[in-house]
């Protein structure tokens, strides 16, 4: 058995330079021009998760500044920062630090920029102008439409598309061979189908399946099943059967064991709701979605998630019995 330090393969196999990026050819070529010219505008990277936006930003910085690129790059994540004020402080601090001998600017990578409110984006726009002398921003976003126009117009736009089947499968194969993983060829294709061109998801799935043994189509499906805690589905089924206490017990279990918040639970329920595994009359699904949305809204507004979800389960118990009585 292997006894070695194990890294998550998404970290271990992350491309270092632009030429290591196997896909997004067009984008890579444009970025390489910036490296050649030693200059670039602000950039906006848009596209679905796992298509290589942050990876491309890192690779670009790597090629511009060399191995020591991290000292010339500030990485921020809009979802993790506390507010525009902390971002402003960090940007200010960073802009004052020294620049590279060859390149006149430093890079600020702001990930998940589309999660910022419009107000925060306005403040961001001012920051971009204020420090444009010696910094360039790279904004990464899943939904470019959520980025305000004044920012969009200041950035060169790059659209990242989901990876092709060939690219994903080839990469998975490369990793699997390197890690000496036993696998069935069609299992890798299955991973591609499920991950829908999201490389991060695909690699995570491969590593997880490999930790269970030989990677087969079955083991891949097993991973998919396990990644969705089945307690949620069971909880719904029990409530619909009228076993309210059992359902509430499961609710507390998922909240405590997995540390899920009320909002997490609501989202998981929503994901289960329209799956074929859950046997329900279609019109009831719609009613449940409606009620679930109300619960979601209340939790977001700050009301007690345990009480809200208990009410939801109690309601399911009533609805389930009515449906049971009809059929």
């Amino acid at each position, binding site marked *: *058995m*292997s*006894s*070695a*330090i*194990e*890294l*998550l393969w*998404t970290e*271990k196999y992350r491309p*270092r330079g632009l030429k290591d990026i196997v896909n997004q050819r067009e984008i890579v070529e444009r970025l390489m021009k910036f490296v050649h010219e030693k200059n670039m505008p602000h950039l906006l990277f848009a596209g679905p*998760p796992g298509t290589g936006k*942050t990876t491309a930003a890192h690779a670009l910085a790597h090629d511009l500044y060399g*191995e*020591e690129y*991290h000292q010339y790059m500030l*990485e921020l*994540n*809009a*979802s*993790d920062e506390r507010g525009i004020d902390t971002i402003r402080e960090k940007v200010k601090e960073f802009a004052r630090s020294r620049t590279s001998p060859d390149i006149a600017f430093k890079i600020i990578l702001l*990930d*998940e920029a589309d999660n910022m409110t419009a107000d925060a984006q306005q403040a961001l726009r001012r920051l971009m102008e204020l420090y444009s002398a010696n910094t360039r921003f790279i904004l990464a976003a899943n939904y470019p439409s959520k980025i305000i126009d004044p920012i969009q117009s200041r950035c060169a736009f790059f659209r990242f598309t989901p990876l092709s089947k060939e690219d994903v499968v080839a990469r998975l194969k490369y*990793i699997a061979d*390197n*890690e000496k993983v036993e696998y069935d060829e069609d299992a890798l294709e299955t991973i591609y189908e499920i991950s829908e061109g999201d490389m*991060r998801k695909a690699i*995570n799935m491969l*590593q*997880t399946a*490999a*930790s*269970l043994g030989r990677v087969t189509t079955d083991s891949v499906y097993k*991973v998919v099943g*396990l*990644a*969705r805690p089945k307690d949620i589905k069971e909880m719904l089924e029990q409530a619909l059967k009228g076993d*309210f*206490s059992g359902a509430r017990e499961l609710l*507390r279990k998922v*909240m*405590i*064991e*997995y*540390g899920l918040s009320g909002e997490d639970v609501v989202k998981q329920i929503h994901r289960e709701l329209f799956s074929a595994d859950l046997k329900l009359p279609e019109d009831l699904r719609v009613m449940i979605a409606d009620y679930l949305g109300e619960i979601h809204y*209340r939790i977001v*507004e*700050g*009301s*007690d998630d*345990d*009480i*809200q979800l*208990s*009410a939801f389960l*109690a*309601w399911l*118990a*009533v609805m389930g*019995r009515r449906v049971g009585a009809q059929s």
Partner: protein
Amino acid sequence: MSSRIPWIIKYRPRRVDEIIDQEEAKSSFLTWIETWLKGKVPEKRAALLYGPPGVGKTSLVEAVANEYDLELLELNASDYRRAEDIRRIVGVAAFRRPLTKRMTLILLDEVDGISARGDIGGLDELMRIIPDARNPIVLTANDPWSDALRPLRNSVLMIQFKELSQGEVVALMQRICEHEKLECDREALRYIAEKNMGDVRACVNDLEAVGEGYGRVSMDLVRTLVRGRDKSMDLWRTLNSVFYAKEGWQAKRAVQNSEEDYETLLAWFNDNVQNKYGSPDDAFRAWDALARASLFISRAKAGNWDLLSYVFDLIGPGVAMARQSGEVLRNRYQYPSKIIMMAKLKDVRGLRDSVASKVAPRLGISTSTFKADVLPYLWIMFRQGDVSRAAGIVVGYNLTEDEVRYLAGPRANDVIRAAEKLREELRRRSRESAEITKAEGTGKTGEDQGRTAQRRGQATLDLWWGSAGAQQPRQEGEERPTKATRRGRRGGHRESTM
């Protein structure tokens, strides 16, 4: 996880001598019971045990029943106690001639809670039964001097329970902590005892809430989590008045008059709807009202405090009027588990966040993306996958034991042990390779490795090199700096941004 029996039940005294303090009360109660057991009838056929909550009144009765092998017939506060109920249950038992030698002990808990409205004629009926009872009747009350109990006082043996001494309560909590293997600090126990004014039940509940949630009982925890519970009587009355209310205004008044704040009330109702309403429709209506109450609290907190009045409407009449089809169940009230749960939740979420903040930056993703997209896979790897790979990840990301417990759940010990072994092994290997380097003196990679290790000054990375350097994933490795230096810089950067 320990068994889920609440400590207040787990550590309930089984024998009379396990009841702390109350020597006078014990001896007069035992004398009275022994008269019955000798086949005689004492002058007063009923005894009223009175005193503050949680000093051992009910426990004494239960311990006596247990020790003398008496059949205990218990009618507690949440049961109906109207005249007909008393006649049907108490009357029959009181006049029963024993078929066996086993005597019946009748216990009516919390008689000062028998309300004039809800339990019409209950006390009168009791007065009629007592003078002729053939079996001992025991009543308990917090306040025997209330008007309602006045007629009763002449026909019962009054036995007073005193407030417990702080020392005794602290000693008891200490014994529980020892039994639960809980680290506790004496000052914290004293604080709990003081806050609860000698109420053992409240003390044990608080101890459980803190201990189960945090695994230790320290002053800082206790100071934030424990507050005085001198109002437990008030709570009990409020719950009863709402669940048994026949009119909306009765429930509303009960909630408005309560000294508890609305959030405490909400927590108590949230955990007792299930105990009181048997019909799913009733239960749903009650919860729907509570859920709306909670919504109004959040709206009020947003600045519109006038909205609080709707909170009371929904908790009181909302819950009371929810009962349309069913009876009220005769279950005891339950201490809200929310408090215990919250403490645990805080721990679990803390661990989840600390795992996220360690791993997410290295993957170049936000912690929220990590939680949603990566964490589920880690759970599988840790709970079902190959243990040595999981151990490899533990070392690779320098995860703590608690973080492993969170990720691996039941398999935690296996993973922790494997990670220990792996660290050991890597340490050995790096020592060996260091010796080889020294011996050869010229090995280029060896020098690189030494320099990297020095620069990093951090054990993990030179270990990493020692083990994984051989499986370099990149083919074009020669024109790039070694993995170890690359990671070294990344590591340095991480420290500066965090």
